[in-house]
Every structure is written in C-alpha cells, then in structure tokens.
C-alpha cells in the first residue's frame, strides 16, 4: 500500500494539502508532520514494523530545524529508498532548487505552491506509483 505523508511547518499549507490530497483521492487519510525529523522517525519506524510499505511524501524545503534538503540526505542513505517517493512542494520559484532536487534519486516531482488540481492528477501518473491508483 501507499501511505501519504505531508511534511510542512505551515498549518495552513498542511490543511490545504490534506484537502487537495483527499479530494483527489490520492489518500483517504494522509498523515502530516510539522517537523521533518519527526516525519523521518515515523518513516523509519514504520519500515521496521511492516514490510514493503511505500511512502508518498509531500515535502516542504524551507523548514526550521531540519529542512527539506537534510531530510532528503537522510533518505538517500537509506537501504529501502526505492520505496520512498518524494514530491517536493515549495513556495520557491527558484530554479536552483529545482535543479538541486533532481539530484536526489528519491524525488519524483517538484511542485510550486499552491498545489493545484492538475498537480494532483500528475502525481497519480508518476510511473513508480501509478499502479496504486489504478481502478480495479
């Protein structure tokens, strides 16, 4: 199964993203974290419990304490990284960030805030996870 996690320190952003993700049927009940470190702990803890779980992570870049890049660095060193599918969601329209994001193998897409309907449709078409959204 595919678990959706929203990582952003902004309450309102989390609210908007939850609404969008549920309304577009990407996830029924996405989990959210205001702190990247907590999200990381959760993901690694989950992995120890149940086997072969996939995560779709909507990740903000600019956060206090651990930012989005630090989070990606930690994932990059992880054995099960092919099960992590990160969507960078940022308010930045800086191209540098986009380029930097492409260097991480876990990053599947890059979305500029606010997340839109078409962004949600595109998420479902990402090849690595599209099979989770096929209607049976």
């Amino acid at each position: 199964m595919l678990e959706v996690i929203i990582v952003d320190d902004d309450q309102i952003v989390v609210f908007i993203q939850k609404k969008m993700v549920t309304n577009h049927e990407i996830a029924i009940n996405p989990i959210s974290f205001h702190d990247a470190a907590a999200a990381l702990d959760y993901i690694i803890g989950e992995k120890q419990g149940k086997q072969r779980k996939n995560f779709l992570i909507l990740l903000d870049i600019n956060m206090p304490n651990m930012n989005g890049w630090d989070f990606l660095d930690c994932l990059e060193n992880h054995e099960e990284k092919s099960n992590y599918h990160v969507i960078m969601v940022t308010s930045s329209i800086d191209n540098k960030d986009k380029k930097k994001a492409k260097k991480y193998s876990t990053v599947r897409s890059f979305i500029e805030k606010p997340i839109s309907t078409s962004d949600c449709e595109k998420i479902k078409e990402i090849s690595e996870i599209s099979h989770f959204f096929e209607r049976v």
Partner: protein
Amino acid sequence: MRKSSGELKILVIEDNPGDFILIEDYLSEEHNALELQRAETFKSAKEILQASSNFDTILLDLSLPDINDTEILVKEILALSNAAPVVVLTGYTDKDYGAKTLSWGVSDYLLKDEINASNLSKSIHYSMERKKVQRQLYESEEKYRTLFDSSPLPMWVLDRHSLEFLSVNQAAIKLYGYSREEFLQMTVRDLWAEEGDRIEKVVEENFHDLFTVKVKHFTKGGDTLYIDVQSNPILFGGREARVTLAHNVTEKLKAEEKLKHSQQRFKALVQDGSDLIKILDENFYYAYVSPSSKNILGIKPENLEGRDAFELIHLDDRAKIQEQIQYLGKKKTIQLPSYRYRDGNGEWRWLETIISDLRHDPAVNGLVANSRDITKFKLQEKQLRESLERYDIVAKATSDLITDYNIEKDVFQYSNAIYDIFGYSQNELRASKKWWQEQIHPDDRLRVVEATNAIYERGQKLLSIEYRFQCSDGDYKYVLDRSYVITDDSGNPSRIIGSIQDITERRKYINAIERSNERLREIAWTQSHVVRAPLARIMGLIDLLKNQRNNLDNIEEIIDNILNSSKELDKVIRKITNKTEEEF
C-alpha cells in the same frame, strides 16, 4: 859589337882547359865587368850551384868526366840553376839532339866549332832576356791564377761547346758543395734547377760574346740558389771556353721578398684597415692621410692633406679636443674624447682618436693620429641610454612596484615604489626570495609558491597572480603580481621582471560589491521563499474556496487565514524594502 855594361857573373862547366880559355877570351872581348867561375866536373858544378845562386848564366859542356847521361846532367843543372838561363855547349853536330836539350828546358844550344865572341855573347844575352820575360809571364799567370782561385766570388771556366767544367775556384766549391774533382766531371747543366731552354738560348746567341743571365741553381745538398751569371768568352789552354762569374743573390732576393711582404702588410693595414691613420704637423695640418679615409670618411686622402685637421671637426667638440692636446709633449700618447667629424656626404661621423707624438722620429716627424669610426657604437649607446631612460621613467611614472629578480644570485632589485606602496626603505630591505615569500600572507603563500614553481619547473614565461603582501607596519595589501621571465642563452630562466600593482583599493571595492551581491541574493531568496509562502497560502485557500466549497466545514476560518496570510505578505514586503534601503 858594343861592350855591354854591368857585371856579368857566369858559371862555366867545362872539363877541357883549352875550351875554357877560348870561352874566357870570347867573353872578355865583349864584357868589361865579367866574373867567371869554372867547374871541371858535374860534382863540383853541383857544389858551386848549391853554394851560390846568383849566376846570370850557366854555360854547360855536355861531355863531363863524371857523368855519361846527358839528360840527367841537363835536368840536374836546370834544377839547380835558380832560374838562370842554361846555355849548352857541345861538339855534337846533331841538330835534333840540340832540339831535345831545348825541350828539357835549356835556353840555347851552341856548337863549339861555331862559337865566336859575338854569337856567344848574343846567345847569353838573348837567353837572359828570354828568361826574364818568361819569369814575368809566369809571375803574371800566377797572379791571375791567384785572382781566380782566391776570388770571393764563385767562378768557373766552361768549355764553350760542351759546357763542361774546365776549372772552378774555391768560392764555387764552397757555395755548391761539390769537390773540384766532382765539378770537373760535370757540365754546368747539372746545376740548373729549371728547364734549360732559356739559358741554352742565351748561351747560343752569345756564343762569342759576354752575357748576363739570372738563373736558379741547386747545390749538391739540394738547396736552391738564385744566381746572377756573368759570362765572358775566353781561350783556355787553347780551347774555346768561357769564364763565368756566379753572383749569389739568394739572400738578397729573400731580403727583397721579405721587404716586399712587409710593405704589402703595411699597405694592407694602412689602406684597407678599419683605422684611419693620419700624420699631422706641429700646427695640426694633415701631412699624410691613409687611403682608408676614402672608405671611412668618403674623402680622398689628397683632399685632406695640407688642410687644418680641426676644419671638419664639429664646432661643439673642438674645445674638449683642444683641452687634451695641450698635454702633447708631456705624454707620448693622448686618447682624445670621441668627437664628430664631417664626412664626404656632409654627415657627422663619430671618431675615436689616439694621438702619438712622433715629432722626434725623423721617419715621421709629426703627430700620428689613429682614428676609428664609432658612429654605429654611438648610435647603439644612444639607443641603450634612451631605453634605460625609458625604463627609469616608466618605473617612476607607474605607481607599480617594478622588481628585477636575479635567479642565480637570489637578489631582488626594487623600484622606489617598494617604499611608496609597502613602506620599506631600500636600505632596510633583505632582497632575497625567502624574504619576499615571508611577506606573503600565510593563507596565500602556498598558492603563490606553487604558481611560481611553474616558472622553474615547467618553463612558464608569464605569471599573473593576486595575493596579500605585508607592509612594514604589519598590515597587508592586496597586490596583482604580473611577472615576466627572462631566459639566458640556453633557455633557462635567469631573471624575473615583476610589475606589482597595489590593488588594495580595488580589492576592497570588489569585496564591497561582493557583499552587496550577497545581500541582493538574500533579497532574491527572500522573494522566492518568504514572499511566496504567504502568497502561495492565499492562492491555495482561494483555490479551495472556489473549487471545493462543498467539502469545506469552516469557511470563516479559511477567510481569516487568507486575511492573516495577506497581512504576513505585507509585512514581508515592507521588510524587503527596508533591507534594500540599507547602506551597502
């Protein structure tokens, strides 16, 4: 017959008393002063002749009791006669026999039967006279023989037809190294050191005449002789011969050759040499000018000779020459300061001149001036000076520090900018490479040393590098060091010329710009992240309101959030404005 005057001393060798008395009578008839001595035997005759040698005539009877062989008798008496004529008296009538005795050397031959006072006296006188002439002839011949033999000039006599040697003198033997016997086996052709045709022709054409000819001869030892031959036709012992005088001119020719070479050398030196040689009289008028003046000055020597030497010297240079030549007489040679001289084209040429005082040398009787054209050198000197001046001016005009580093000696030379820029005075400097590197900021030093190694290890010619350099007060200044490497003949770096520019001001300015850029980047980042965060929120919330209104529980809350986000956005924008207005 006239009675002869003067005492006559006669030896009569006669055994016959009757014959003796007869002879005595005949002689007394013709002579007043007569001293007769008689020898009766061969033996006593010999004794008389050995004791006394001043007989004017000897009368000899051939029939003596103590000797039978008349030939021995005659020859012995002749040998003892001491040049006195011997007249033979005999009873034989055989004329041939008389002739025979004549061939032995007797002066006359008289038959006793035919003797009378008159013919006896005549015979005695003729014999004496003949003997005298003979002696004179002999003495004369002897004199000439001596002249020939002991002449210091080599001489010889040749057969006029065969050119065989008939006689050679001592000087010829000495000169040619052949013995007399060897010479007499040779012809003169054996001496010739060249094809004989020319000489044969001369000899043939002057067969009966005197001729002179120059020839080349070989000695026995193979040395070459140059001979002036003078040859006269003579009769020698009845043969047609010629006497030749061989004048050895080898040494003379060698000396002439030497003189000729010496003259040619001198001519070459004076005429074609690069030096201009002049002889001046006491008033500095040219007495002689060497032909090289044509090449050097483009003026023919004859156009200078007789003229004032100062005439063509540049007016501005005359005074300094005058100053030097006043020492003439005190110094043997004087080196004049270089001066300008107008050449044949009216151009100035620089000359360097040495004057030698040879007024006391009668062969010269003047001052010898030896000049060299140094125009080219002067031009180069001028160019060099200008180039050095340019360097000095550049070094002064530029605010850059100019360094000249001698790699082999490990010595730096600095322009005065070392003080202006860094505060080091020239005399407190330690000019080594080590010192220089020590003044480089520690953070820059390794980088600079490595870059410098490119010059030594990889043959790099140009180096341009920035670093900080410590001033005398301990502060650092930023410099741009541009160095150029000069290589020696074998291509190895020998010197490094550096131009060190103080870029502290520029560096500070750049640092300021960099700082301001940093701030601008910060603003841009803020725009990208901080500004867009509330905006994105607003956009997201409005999107929800518009498209998801039916799924929303609390619309009031959303509108409040929109308002809050708008306020936040406003705050951010104000902050940016404030930051932009900050002084850089």
